[in-house]
């Protein structure tokens, strides 16, 4: 995130000429929000941590932040510490962290356990060739030294330690360069690099800044363990190395310094935070055990503090530990202790008569030594040259530990300013001890209510410039102005803005917005001369831009600025524009996004409309006509009787009479079959039956008809 912000700032800086005001950010020291974050981050496992390293990180963080949670976990932690220290198979890393935990918790480990561990560590120191082995074992020895009360008990076995230390120093002495020597002594390997960085072991060609931090810490341990004075040239070469290391420091634009791991593809990638924190640990440890100044510029130490503070509250337990631990080391370091000047608020309101408050703390938020804070300059942003005020001292309120400036200088109007502060330490001895960072530039926003006056809107006739309609508007209240204009006319909107001190004010946002019914928007930036803001819209020149869209345009005015407390967006009313019809190939207004509710949402239901059933006639009518259709049949029968039909031709002899009867019965049967067919039978049954009946009918029909034919021909011939 810090880097991210850095990028953002680079960008701003590139884009702006007067970016210096923004580039110096405010860093807040560690506060309660860190404490609650720590409780949150370290809580998830409920005290039982997966490794002793994590336990140490938790304890250390809590210790630094002053949170008393020791009792919650001490039992479990001490148990695992004594297990680790008592076991001969525990790893070096675990031993190291167990000792660290013990350093905080005072678990009451027996002296003989320490002895065993110490002898083991000494053996490792003797045969170590990798940096981490050195780091852990030397670190462990230092911790044992600090934790065992009886020095003599330790001394009894100190010879071995001494031997290894001696081996170091003598070998180092023989090496051509000291930096190389300090490790080369032990295992004929050169882990230190010419640029101040170190390698993890001789087989790994990559040099690492992270490793440099570890090495410095290990060296500090060796120095503190050694009983005799370490050769001074050895120390000074190491100091030189530290300076070289600081040459490779990287910088953000907000004044934060940090170290980053340059090597790629290391076994374990260390981020900027852990790298920087490793260096800080090594540096402070080394500075603590050596006498004499390191000649490090205090600005860089302050920059490192700013880097850690600039991270804010990390969301990761490891990061929080690194941040808090490093800040704790910085707070108590012997090079220079950074002091952080912070402002609770950089936005000051003239209306509320906000007082300028400044706090000075150490990085962990404790009070600074007695000092005076001076406000040197107040610069209007954009014009770097002259200060608006004389240098003045801020009043110290010892109760709240706040430096205040009761009233802002009279000449300070609303606007963006850069305030330049300076800290002056009262005690001259402190001047070397503390890093104050010289002149501190802080951007300040002074806000106030801007007076809006004499606003009016008018429609002008184009050629004459005469005013057709003119309306006053009240930009503080509601307005519903209704105007109409055609393309030969102009719209004029004007108002005045002035600051509380009566100066002209130019807001960042002064935009006139015309919105057509179809949501097509047109915006115009209002220009100003002095206090007067005016815009004249000549519709003749705008018809193309307005896409020849006639109709109602809503007029809105937006005036706003970062320092304007009464920024507003006001609907003024509407203008009915009468624009000429668009010519062919006129540009089309841009498409507006569809309302999602039109796309989504249920559709209207559709019910199928069935064909209406046929209108049936009344039953009576049908029956009447049924009767009518039967009438002709009756007429037929009556007619037959009237004609006097007889059946004399019916064969008289029995055989033809039988055939005749059968023939007519057959016809009747076929017709009855048809009736049945109509009522219920299907076509197949019917045709089957019809086949039989038809054959029968053919037979009898043939017999009777041939009989009749022969009888009639007989009659004829007779």
């Amino acid at each position, binding site marked *: 995130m810090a880097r*991210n912000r850095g990028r*953002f700032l680079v*960008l*701003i800086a590139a*884009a702006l000429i007067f970016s210096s005001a*923004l580039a110096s950010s405010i860093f807040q020291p560690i506060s309660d929000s860190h404490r609650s974050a720590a409780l949150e981050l370290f809580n998830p496992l409920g005290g039982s941590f997966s490794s002793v390293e994590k336990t140490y990180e938790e304890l250390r963080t809590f210790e630094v932040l002053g949170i008393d949670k020791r009792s919650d976990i001490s039992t479990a932690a001490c148990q695992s510490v004594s297990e680790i220290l008592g076991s001969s198979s525990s790893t070096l890393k675990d031993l190291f962290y167990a000792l660290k935990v013990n350093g905080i918790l005072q678990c009451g480990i027996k002296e003989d356990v320490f002895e065993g561990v110490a002898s083991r560590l000494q053996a490792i120191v003797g045969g170590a060739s990798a940096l981490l082995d050195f780091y852990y074992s030397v670190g462990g020895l230092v911790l044992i030294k600090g934790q065992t009360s009886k020095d003599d008990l330790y001394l009894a076995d100190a010879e071995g330690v001494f031997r290894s230390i001696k081996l170091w120093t003598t070998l180092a002495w023989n090496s051509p360069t000291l930096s190389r020597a300090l490790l080369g002594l032990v295992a004929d390997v050169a882990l230190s690099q010419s640029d101040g960085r170190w390698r993890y072991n001789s087989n790994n060609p990559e040099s690492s800044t992270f490793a440099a931090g570890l090495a410095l810490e290990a060296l500090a341990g060796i120095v503190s363990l050694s009983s005799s004075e370490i050769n001074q040239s050895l120390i000074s070469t190491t100091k030189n190395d530290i300076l070289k290391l600081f040459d490779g420091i990287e910088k953000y634009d907000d004044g934060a310094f940090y170290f980053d791991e340059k090597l790629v593809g290391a076994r374990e990638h260390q*981020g*900027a*935070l852990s790298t920087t924190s490793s260096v800080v640990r090594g540096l402070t440890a080394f500075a603590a055990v050596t006498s004499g100044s390191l000649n490090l510029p205090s600005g860089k130490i302050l920059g490192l503090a700013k880097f850690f503070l600039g*991270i*804010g*509250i*990390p*969301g990761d337990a490891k990061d929080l530990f690194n941040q808090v631990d490093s800040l704790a080391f910085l707070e108590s370091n012997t090079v220079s202790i950074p002091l952080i000047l912070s402002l609770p*608020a*950089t*936005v000051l309101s003239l209306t509320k008569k906000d007082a300028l408050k400044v706090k000075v703390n150490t990085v962990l938020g404790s009070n600074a030594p007695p000092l005076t804070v001076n406000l040197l300059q107040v610069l209007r942003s954009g014009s770097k040259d002259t200060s608006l005020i004389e240098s003045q001292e801020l009043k110290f309120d010892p109760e709240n530990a706040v430096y205040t400036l009761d009233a802002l200088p009279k000449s300070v109007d609303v606007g963006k300013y850069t305030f330049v502060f300076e800290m002056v330490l009262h005690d001259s001895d402190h001047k070397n001890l503390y890093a104050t960072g010289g002149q501190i530039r802080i*951007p300040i926003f002074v806000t106030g209510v801007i007076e809006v006056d004499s606003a009016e809107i008018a429609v002008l006739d184009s050629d004459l410039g005469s005013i057709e309609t003119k309306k006053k508007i009240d930009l503080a209240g509601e307005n519903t102005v209704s105007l109409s204009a055609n393309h030969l006319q102009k719209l004029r909107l004007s108002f005045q803005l002035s600051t509380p001190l009566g100066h002209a004010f130019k807001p*960042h*946002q002064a*935009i006139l*917005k015309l919105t057509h019914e179809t949501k097509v*928007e047109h*915006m115009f*930036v209002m220009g100003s001369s002095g206090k007067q803001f005016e815009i004249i819209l000549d519709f003749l020149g705008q018809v193309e831009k307005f896409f020849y869209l006639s109709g109602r345009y809503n007029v809105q005015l*937006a005036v*706003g600025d*970062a*320092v*304007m407390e009464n920024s*507003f*967006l006001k609907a003024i009313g509407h203008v009915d524009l009468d624009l000429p019809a668009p010519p062919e190939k006129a540009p089309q207004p*841009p498409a507006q*996004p569809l309302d*999602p*509710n039109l*796309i*989504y949402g*249920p*559709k209207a239901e*559709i*019910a*199928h409309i*069935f064909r209406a059933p046929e209108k049936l006639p009344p039953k009576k009518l*049908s*029956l009447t*006509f*049924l009767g009518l*259709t039967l009438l002709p*049949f009756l007429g*037929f*029968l009556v007619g*037959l009787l009237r004609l006097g039909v*007889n*059946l*004399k*031709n*019916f064969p008289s002899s029995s055989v033809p009479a039988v055939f005749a009867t059968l023939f007519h019965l057959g*016809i009747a049967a076929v*017709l009855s079959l048809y009736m049945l067919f109509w009522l219920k039978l299907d076509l197949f049954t019917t045709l089957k039956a019809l086949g039989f009946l038809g054959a029968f009918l053919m037979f009898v029909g043939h017999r009777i008809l041939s009989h009749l034919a022969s009888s009639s021909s007989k009659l004829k011939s007779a």
Partner: protein
Amino acid sequence: MSPPHRVNPQPLSLSPRQPKDPTTTKMARINFSVLTILSVILLLPVLSLSFSPDSPSDRRLLVLFDDLSLKSSHSIFFNSLKSRGFDLDFKLADDPKLALQRYGQYLYDGLILFSPSIERFGGALDLAAVLDFVDSGHDLIIAADSSASDLIKSVATECGVDFDEDPSALVIDHRSYAVVGTEGDHTLIAADDFIESDVLLGENKIELKVRVLNVYGFWIKQAPVLYKGIAHSLNAANNLVLKVLSASPAAYSANPSSKLSSPPSLTGSSISLVSVVQARNNARIMITGSLDLFSNRFFRSSIQKAGSPKKYDKSGNEQFVAELSKWVFHERGHLKAVNLRHNKAGETDEPAMYRIKDDLDFSVEIYEWSGKSWEPYVANDVQVQFYMMSPYVLKTLSNDKKGLYHTSFKVPDVYGVFQFKVEYNRLGYTSLLLSKQIPVRPFKHNEYERFITAAFPYYGASFTMMAGFFIFSFVYLYHK
């Protein structure tokens, strides 16, 4: 892993005879030895294990950073994802080993681009690869900020939103900025113009516990969301993209430190702060111009909107982002429709064909993926269409609150090949599109109504003609 019926290529597990893995195909072609085939077959179940559809625990997300410190500064967001069962893989965006797929198989189910300033991804990842990833139904979150690179902007453009082209512009709002003592330039915005959608923002977006009536008498909904970043607008031609969080009408996008000379290109509510896209393949995308939106700092920050007396102890960011990410990763609003059934009224079997004017029952079951299981989906606006060229019947289904939707209607008196169609497109939900074809026939000739009173005269006439014929034939034949 996404819910089951998402478009998800599983070629390896489904077609062992035609492995799509290029290397195995090649091997098999060159040397058709038993060993090769065996190894391929043995490999298949192993590879397909990660695609178990009903286990959301193996949903893998790739998170790309410009800077690994984001992992710590945005840890609350990541932890909430982890606690919901996601498997997060953090990588630097220029990591030379980046790849979204291996052997044609996607390694991740979602991609989170928290690397606004990356000009060129490392490894095999590029714009086309990201778009292919989305085209194959995977989800994407893009967070940009003022350092947004052309690459990130072009990914967003492909998704249907356009970031402001001015690289130094930020969203400024002099009316609804967040009141913070140390932020004076009004680029830290308290945005509360949310889209009205429970599925996108969660049903309890109105935090019932802290629901307070403010002095103006309005119900305060969710706490405003802190936003600091760049503006984007929706592409009007793309109607799949939705504005979830809009800027206030007074907002505009400009460089806060230089004078405005020309009207800002984006102003007012047309500025989108957070947008989402649901592609037609149900891939979901979230785009925002503020990376800080997801940061611990914003999550933990208190918020007070300018001009409002109400101060919230906590901004709405955490809830907003958590709810929206649930949507993006298909823990909400992902529907499936199964068991589309229809039958004649009073029967249970599905007929092969309907006759016109039949009464039929239609039912379908709809479930929503909750992140862990399929839960019944309850809504009163699911509709079915009986469709042939155009809908003949369109009816809203009633549901039994257990996911079963049901209705009944009469088949129209038009015959032809119809479809039952369930088209369900709701804001935020995956679209459902089911259809089942069913022919509808006219009445058979023996199914028409018979012995109609109106036809009695005709019947009478026909039968008298028959009778007349009988009598005539008799009389005529034997008359002398």
